[in-house]
């Protein structure tokens, strides 16, 4: 119900009382229901530009496909189809690129619209690559089973401390490019200690996604092994 009150200036005060946070949650919940109905296990892969989200997804797709899982990928980027193209050859059954045209994150509405365009019959696993950004995506729930935050050694020793919201919202942290930590002079003990402080007990998997190292453990942590 809306209440109206006429003010002296010839304008009216409209009481709106719309909870936008609740609206976002509702959209995410709708996606969650849709995934459940269709038997799809969906995951939101977040992380900075260059953290290794696409490399992780490509490797996950290859391994899951080899085990006869039907995997679909939604790749979110501001522009281009490079990420979608990278996973096509890895065995994904369906790949859809969302170009946000400037928006810095995916939200539940964009994912719902992508699902309308992408037939998901027979799909068992859906990997959603969020826009490369360690900040904005953390505020938008997509309705997935778990959020995987990918962070790479070259993002510096204080990356966790600097982006608390993302790691507050993550269900699994993948620490990628551990092979170059020494070369970029980053002691990984620091981000791991920061994570333990921020989210005690949160699972962290160290990877070198380009070489496939640690990806099996990621699949295991997500219950996909």
């Amino acid at each position, binding site marked *: 119900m*809306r209440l109206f009150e006429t003010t002296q200036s010839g304008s009216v*005060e409209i009481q*709106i009382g719309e*909870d936008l946070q609740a609206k*976002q949650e509702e959209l995410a919940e709708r996606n969650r229901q849709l995934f459940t109905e269709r038997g799809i296990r969906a995951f939101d892969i977040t992380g900075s530009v260059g953290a290794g989200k696409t490399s992780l997804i490509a490797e996950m797709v290859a391994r899951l496909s080899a085990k006869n899982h039907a995997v679909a990928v939604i790749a979110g980027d501001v522009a281009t189809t490079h990420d979608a193209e990278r996973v096509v050859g890895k065995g994904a059954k369906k790949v859809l690129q969302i170009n946000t*045209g400037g928006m810095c994150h995916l939200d539940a509405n964009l994912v719902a*619209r*992508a699902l309308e365009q992408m037939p998901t019959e027979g799909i068992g696993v859906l990997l959603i690559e969020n826009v490369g950004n360690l*900040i904005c995506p953390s505020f938008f729930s997509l309705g997935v089973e778990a959020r995987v935050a990918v962070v790479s050694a070259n993002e510096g020793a204080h990356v966790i401390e600097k982006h608390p919201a993302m790691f507050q919202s993550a269900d699994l942290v993948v620490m990628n490019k551990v092979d170059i930590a020494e070369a970029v002079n980053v002691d990984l003990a620091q981000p791991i200690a920061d994570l333990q402080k921020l989210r005690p007990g949160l699972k962290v998997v160290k990877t070198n996604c380009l070489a496939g190292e640690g990806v099996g453990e990621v699949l295991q942590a997500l219950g996909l092994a």
Partner: protein
Amino acid sequence: MHEYSIALDVWQSVFAAAREHGGGRVQSIKLEIGALNMIQDEQMTFWVEALAEQDGSPGVGLDIIHLPARVRCLKCTAETTPEMATSPALFFVPPVLQCGNCGSGDVEVVGGRELRVVSAEVEEKEKSDGAAGETRASRPSLD
């Protein structure tokens, strides 16, 4: 930067309500925003103004009520407002999500994520000039 999509949701909500009430020019909007949304007032105002202008309500004013972050400690059960780092050299700092009582990071967020369109002041139609007509704020295309 996520201010844009939130501004769009805000404006769509206000625009719909204004239309329902005669479609007069929107003069001001009152919002409640929790600290954990990390929204900068300046960017938020910029985008809402831009969207409103496009839909026939130039010069809309934004009244933003800030709600603090609140966390409940899973260790000592205290409910506290996390400290915000303040320094003239720091432009924008997120609150540190830890218990204000025992310092534990094992906390549950109980406040600060609010994003509410409280109300809007809308000009009565007959006084409104070139008011919000049939144009609509739209989402960016997927393609």
